[in-house]
């Protein structure tokens, strides 16, 4: 048995809050109605701390810390919105838009996309960086779902949900760096995957139009990543 977590008090954006020592800054902030932007984070999946949208400033530290993996500490003074942080968040979004071909107007996720929402929320009206315009495939071999690499932001939510929740580990990443690519099994068409259970969890957690249900294209159907919290609650309730 782990010892019971201690209660810590800290200040987030000048508001005094209390949290238990096993909570992250992100948990504590959201519990108290303070929103911190995220992209790779999803309740119910392990954290990877990769998108850097949730970086916050800590008093007494020059280095920015990701709220999703940084545990609360006694006396911490967290600032979640500063001109510097906002500038970096806008740049993260700009980098994503320039990295692949996010053509919102013709995207299946138009108006139902977390990337698009974030761009609006952070006032990204244009992208200053040159568009890389890579040539990327679209995999429609699965009977129900499709994968459009043009819209993928490599957040790995699908990889994690498939591995951690469904237990299939159909997805992983190929290569590295800017050439990374989401793959199923041995880089084979999704429809020919030996391991995919067609559960559709990856589609539900995908923040953009990279993974989608073919039958719902243009149907203005929001994805439902919140099923994970429900699954977890059920699981914990059973324990």
């Amino acid at each position, binding site marked *: 048995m782990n010892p019971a977590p201690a209660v810590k008090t800290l200040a987030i954006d000048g508001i005094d809050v209390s949290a238990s020592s096993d909570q992250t800054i992100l948990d504590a902030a959201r519990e108290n109605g303070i929103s911190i932007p995220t992209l790779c984070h999803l309740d119910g999946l392990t954290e990877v701390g990769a998108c850097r949208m949730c970086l916050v400033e800590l008093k007494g530290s020059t280095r920015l810390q990701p709220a999703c993996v940084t545990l609360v500490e006694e006396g911490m003074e967290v600032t979640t919105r500063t001109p510097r942080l906002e500038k970096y968040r806008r740049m*993260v979004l700009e980098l994503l838009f320039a*990295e692949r071909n996010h053509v919102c107007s013709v995207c299946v996720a138009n108006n139902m996309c977390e990337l698009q929402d974030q761009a609006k929320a952070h006032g990204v009206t244009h992208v200053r960086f*040159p568009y890389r315009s890579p040539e990327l495939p679209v995999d429609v071999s699965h009977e129900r779902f499709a994968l459009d690499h043009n819209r993928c932001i490599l957040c790995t939510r699908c990889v994690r949900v498939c591995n951690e929740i469904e237990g299939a580990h159909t997805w992983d990443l190929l290569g590295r760096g800017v050439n990374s690519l989401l793959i199923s099994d041995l880089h084979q068409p999704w429809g020919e995957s030996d391991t995919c259970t067609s559960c559709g969890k990856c589609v539900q957690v995908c923040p953009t139009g990279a993974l989608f249900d073919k039958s719902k294209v243009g149907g203005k159907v929001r994805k439902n990543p919140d099923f994970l919290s429900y699954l977890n609650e059920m699981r914990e309730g059973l324990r």
Partner: protein
Amino acid sequence: MTLDELEQIANEVQAAKEKSPRALNVCVAAGCLSLHSDAIKSALEKEVQRTGVNCRVAGTGCMGLCSLGPLVNREPDGQLLKNVAEADAAEIVEKLESVPPERLLCSREQPFFQRQTAVVLENSGRINPEKIEEYIAAEGYQALVRALTEMAPAQIVQEVSKSGLRGRGGAGYPTGLKWGTVAKTIGTTKYVICNADEGDPGAFMDRSVLESDPHRVLEGMIVAGYAVGASQGYIYVRAEYPLAIKRLQAAIRDARRLGFLGSQICNAKFSFDIEIRIGGGAFVCGEETALIASIEGRRGTPRPRPPFPAQSGLWQMPTLINNVESFANIPTILRRGGEWYASLGTKKSKGTKVFALCGKVRNVGLIEVPMGTPLRQIIFEIGGGIPDGHRFKAVQTGGPSGGCIPEQSLDLPVDYESLKEVGSIMGSGGMIVMDDSACMVNVARYFMEFCMSESCGKCIPCRAGTAQMFELLTRMTSGTATPQDLELLEDLCDMVSSTSLCGLGQSAPNPVLSTLRYFREEYTEHIVDKHCRAGVCECNHLAEVSA
């Protein structure tokens, strides 16, 4: 194994040497080996056999002055022979007793040798790296035996702390402090990892140490294992270093044979073993959490710290990670005392540092100098200055995470703090000298290309940011950049260094930032005048066409 037994082995080696005092030691480390020194060694062996003279022929590690290789060291007079060829074998053997031929003579009186202080490299080029007995004869494994029989783990940590040794991998974290943390952390199993994934292009210090004196690294690791309470060690070596791997494998086998590895080492209640893990060619695996992922058989992507490996490392256990040179310092520190080590170097950077001096400099090779030695002395005295009538322009330290240091900062004493002050870092020890034929924008682009293709791709700033910076730098070298592109580049440098997940991304902008700081006019020339003064970049061609 006891101290007496060690002495006995040393005496036997000594006796054999006295019986046959003459020897020709051929450098068979990578540098000379690439000039076929192995063939020279066999030629000398054949010649000795043919003439029947009493002379040993042996392969040794690096003698430092690689640009004059292949090198042969003659015993007992210690004469150094340079640029040796197979055809020289007969003459060398014939003149064993007399002065060697003038053209082969390499004076040890020159500053290259005189200005150095050997600690890590004390045995390099002097012992046969494939013979554990020779290492023992050079006082090897004494520190380990003493540590295990006479010292408590805490005392060892104290001694290392006293030495002031800081991580030689580049970041300069105090080694004693790291050891202390791992020692104090509770865990059912603890690990010691030696980071031999020397990834900086232009750096070959660790490779040379592993090839020339592998037991020194093993001894340092075993001592560390005892000090922190670990039972298993791993050496993570680059696959690109086959010779180092071969020598390490032999060294581990011999150390096991003599009981320096295994259970109840030196009859102490301490068991420790070391395994080699071969890397796969990923620079990011020099980052400790990525290296751990790689040893665990996964993609080498870093994870956010904390928790630090000292608390939760390999298989979530407390793990000590040091690089090759850090471990290689340990035997000498224990043998001669932490205070002695701390007497070398500067106030905040103690001891010596090994550098791989290369690029546009006369004496290319491996050197070891006390911390605080001025760069000018390293480049112009030890290095012999710039060849072919060119002018010095910059020296690059710290690899893709470092920066370019200009002429006006050459009197800087080399230590962690002052290098950081001028916008570079100590890094692992690569030191690349550039002359006026180098274009600094092109150099910045070269390093950015490196970082872009070595980025693991996990975090967005590093993955997409390095690709954008590379694109902007390419616009500059190809003559299509606008002044706004420079603004964008500077914005990205700030963003990528502030927001990236690991050290690779955080330091990726350094080569750009340091060249912008000292050579901004070259950027302006590329952007506004479409002119590259070094004549390296495409933009010149473009200007000619439009003129």
